[in-house]
């Protein structure tokens, strides 16, 4: 396995955005097929955040964050949870899954050899933060770029996040 990434988008940090702002966000950062998936979801706003959160988790699995979400994800599923599969054919495949909670959206991603990513992610999903009630905690330091780095190779000084099983 190349890496694991996790991203948490708290509703309190995006709930205030106007519909036109969310539309602009989608037009700027999502690919047409991703926008089409968002348009078919019950909440366009939440769907846009899901896609971007999955992309951020994928970047963290690659050991990067705060980047420009250029990769394309094929979204599978809808509503409370599903899968996002990197559509670029490569020896290393990226894949994410997400779960919508009451106050946040949690995305978990892996970068792994093609063919193994889904199995690895499913195992992580069953044993990790999605599996039982958890309290996610975030710690921020004073030395970071936007977002928090929760990948397997966090940058020095970057905020970290993890799971605390209750």
């Amino acid at each position: 396995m190349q890496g694991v990434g996790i991203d948490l988008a708290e509703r309190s940090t995006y709930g205030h955005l106007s519909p036109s702002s969310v539309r602009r966000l989608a037009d700027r950062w999502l690919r047409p097929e991703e926008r089409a998936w968002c348009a078919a979801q019950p909440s366009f706003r939440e769907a846009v955040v899901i896609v971007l959160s999955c992309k951020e988790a994928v970047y963290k699995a690659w050991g990067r964050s705060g980047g420009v979400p250029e990769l394309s994800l094929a979204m599978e599923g809808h509503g409370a949870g599903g899968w996002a599969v990197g559509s670029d054919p490569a020896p290393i495949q990226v894949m994410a899954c997400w779960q919508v909670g009451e106050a946040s959206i949690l995305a978990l991603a892996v970068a792994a050899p093609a063919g193994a990513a889904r199995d690895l992610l499913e195992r992580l999903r069953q044993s990790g933060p999605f599996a039982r009630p958890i309290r996610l905690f975030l710690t921020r330091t004073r030395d970071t770029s936007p977002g928090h780095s929760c990948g397997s190779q966090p940058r020095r000084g970057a905020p970290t996040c993890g799971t605390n099983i209750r």
Partner: protein
Amino acid sequence: MHDRDRIGRRVREVLAQVLDVPAKSIDQDFSATSSVAWTSLNHLMLISQLETEFDVVFSNQEIRELTSYTTIVDTLGRRLDSVA
């Protein structure tokens, strides 16, 4: 030469709107480091809002570097001067 104060006022308005923080809390030291509201998601929102407001398109390098109020104002000042 574009008026830096005027650019600064408009940037402050965009930051306040996107990050949902009081405009008066945005000073010269305001940055992704100092604001918990400046998440990775809101950073993308901020970039798209600034591009619309100032009619510019930032490069990938600029997008990664625009992580503080002063950097945004300086970058926009240069960009707007170059097209004036």
